[in-house]
């Protein structure tokens, strides 16, 4: 009986989708209530953070990395013995497990530690930089998502037409050009040649000339992928029976697209858009280095290059949190947006 009930809930289209079992599981979880899902995901997040911090902690405490830290902190021309005594006097010689437990204890009390690179508490450095990157990511999303959806819909509504070919090749081209390639080419064109935009971006200064290049670089790289997913989804919807019915009723084409196709075609891209956030975090590092924008990505690189232990650990915690939370939002949104798999 229960199995048959499952079969009825499961629409045919989802059998082809490899993750449909997951959706069934999600439905059952949602039936129990959202809180269960959220709590279990938060549990997974904590577990992931712990595992990841162990790995990072181990790697940053390797002997060569500690030596790098000592030389950066005290004196670049220290002898081997001086390095050892510096490490000894600063407590880096104690057993790694003991120091990890100490760090874990401090973090669970909300103390993220001390940044050796910036000589400040991590809690004084991190939030401001995260804010700058959030600002950048916000503008990227604002420009990227509508453009990508528009391109995908225009390409997918007449599959195989000339406009579809042109738009599809455009989106393949943008996905094939990584940020450090397109960013440089844009700088050559808009900054060196035309002189319209600045080649270097100052954090927090929201003006067009300052922000356009990094935003454009990131948005264009991510745009192609979303556009292709939207196009595939739109093309599938346009082949459905109810679209044919609408056509036979004599509805004009633009009304078919806007009223009937659009809503159904936008469900699949939603998940993809949500899963772009973790990617933004990596993309941000490249773009921030390229345009010398001092945000989270710049902080991460600074921390890694100087083996700033506490700061690096906090940065990795932040990225795990971003990945898990966006995935959670994507999962919930997917079920809530899609009336076909909503449980009545």
């Amino acid at each position, binding site marked *: 009986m229960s199995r048959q009930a499952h079969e009825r809930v499961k629409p045919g289209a989802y059998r082809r989708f490899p993750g449909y079992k997951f959706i069934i599981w999600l439905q059952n979880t949602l039936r129990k209530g959202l809180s269960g899902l959220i709590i279990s995901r938060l549990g997974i997040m904590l577990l992931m953070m712990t595992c990841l911090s162990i790995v990072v902690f181990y790697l940053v405490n390797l002997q060569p990395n500690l030596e790098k830290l000592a030389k950066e902190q005290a004196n670049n021309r220290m002898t081997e013995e001086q390095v050892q005594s510096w490490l000894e006097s600063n407590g880096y010689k104690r057993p790694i497990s003991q120091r990890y437990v100490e760090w874990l204890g401090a973090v669970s009390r909300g103390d993220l530690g001390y940044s050796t690179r910036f000589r400040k508490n991590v809690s004084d450095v991190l939030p401001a930089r995260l804010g700058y990157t959030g600002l950048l990511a916000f503008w990227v999303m604002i420009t990227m998502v509508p453009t990508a959806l528009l391109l995908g819909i225009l390409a997918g509504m007449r599959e195989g037409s000339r406009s579809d070919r042109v738009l599809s090749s455009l989106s393949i081209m943008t996905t094939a050009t990584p940020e450090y*390639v397109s960013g440089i080419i844009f*700088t050559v064109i808009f900054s060196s040649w035309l002189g319209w935009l600045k*080649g270097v971006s100052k954090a927090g200064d929201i003006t067009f000339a300052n922000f356009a290049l990094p935003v454009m670089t990131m948005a264009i790289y991510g745009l192609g992928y979303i556009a292709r997913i939207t196009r595939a989804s739109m093309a599938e919807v346009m082949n459905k029976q109810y679209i044919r019915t609408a056509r036979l009723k004599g509805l004009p084409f633009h009304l078919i697209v806007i009223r009937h196709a659009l809503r159904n075609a936008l469900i699949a891209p939603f998940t993809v858009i949500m899963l772009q956030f973790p990617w933004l975090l990596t993309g941000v590092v490249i773009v921030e280095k390229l345009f010398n924008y001092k945000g989270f990505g710049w902080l991460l690189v600074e921390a890694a290059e100087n083996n700033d232990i506490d700061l690096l650990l906090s940065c990795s915690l932040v990225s795990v949190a971003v990945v898990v939370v966006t995935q959670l939002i994507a999962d919930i949104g997917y079920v809530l947006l899609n009336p076909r798999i909503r449980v009545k």
Partner: protein
Amino acid sequence: MQQLSASQIFIHTVICFWPVWLGLAVIFTVSIASRQKTGLYGRIFDSKVAMLGLSIVLFWILTASFAELLAPFDPLEQFAALKRALPGIIEQKSGLPFLFGGDNLGRDLFSRMIYGSRFVLLIAPAATLTSSISGVLLGLPAGYFRGRLNTLLSFLANLLLAFPVILLFHLLVTPGVRETIIPKLMAGLIFLLPIIFFMLLFWSRYGARRQLLWIQLTLVMAFAGWIYVGVVFPDAVEAIGLSDLFPGLDPNELNIFVAVVFASAPGTFHIVRGLTLDLRTRDYVAAAQTRGENPWYIMLWEILPNIRGPLIVDVCLRIGYTTILLGTLGFFGLGLAPESPDWGSMINQTRGFIRIVPTIVLPPTLALASLVLGLNLLADGLREESLKD
């Protein structure tokens, strides 16, 4: 100094690539003539997109293999007079042009771009294959057996996916880590997976035919062991003085290899696991189970051939993605020797001079973008062709 005009540069470049054009012509004639017999590969030539993608990819493969023939200069040789030279300047001593100009140290950008393709086309396909085989080997049982194994492996994959790639690179591909045992340990683990894969592959099918099985296993062991020993135990090989006989990777390259595999394997794992979860309920799997087949036989000889379409497409896309990753490494100045002519490092070294000579960064950037574009087009065409059944 003499200077070639834009059209002269173009003609010279086209002429310079003559072995590549010849190779392309030969490959295309042979492939198109025999396309009825070559299955999915032959069907590439039915689609314009796939053919365009294939020709770009082949162009770079041929360029990498004929690099000595194509490059007019040594990629490391510096000409003090030609620092940041404009495209088309003639080098006085040899009378040959710097087709794409000189870089910040006076090296020929054209030759460096050509030699740069070697690094990418050596590491990217090898690392992608290794990571894909690892993903398949772990994804199949996770999807087939489900339960605890699935939960554990999925958690590990998600953990690796949550690890910011840049952080992984910074931690793993630094000069300090190279001296520790970690890259070798990791490599020992990662290269073990393909060996296990091929052993299982033959054992599950030919387990009853002992003689054949022994021959196959010996061949796998000999070939894989040869690579394994050369890559994982270079010190031991050097100690007995046989390092010429074994393939070796720089500690640098080994590090990069390991980092790229770690960054890329979880993706393949997720795809394989999802597809296996879907296919395990099919009738032919049930039939094999009723016959009492070994689970590994069902996974490797019943399910795997049926997911090869999406997998091939994934490998194509992933080689492109790995190319981008390798460029990222160079861009951050990680792991590679500073004078190395790989595209990412070239971009990083020359990008400071775009205000003076805007064309200085174009050769490596366009090369990288075109290779990735070719791989994407090929993957797209392959997907369309494989869906036509």
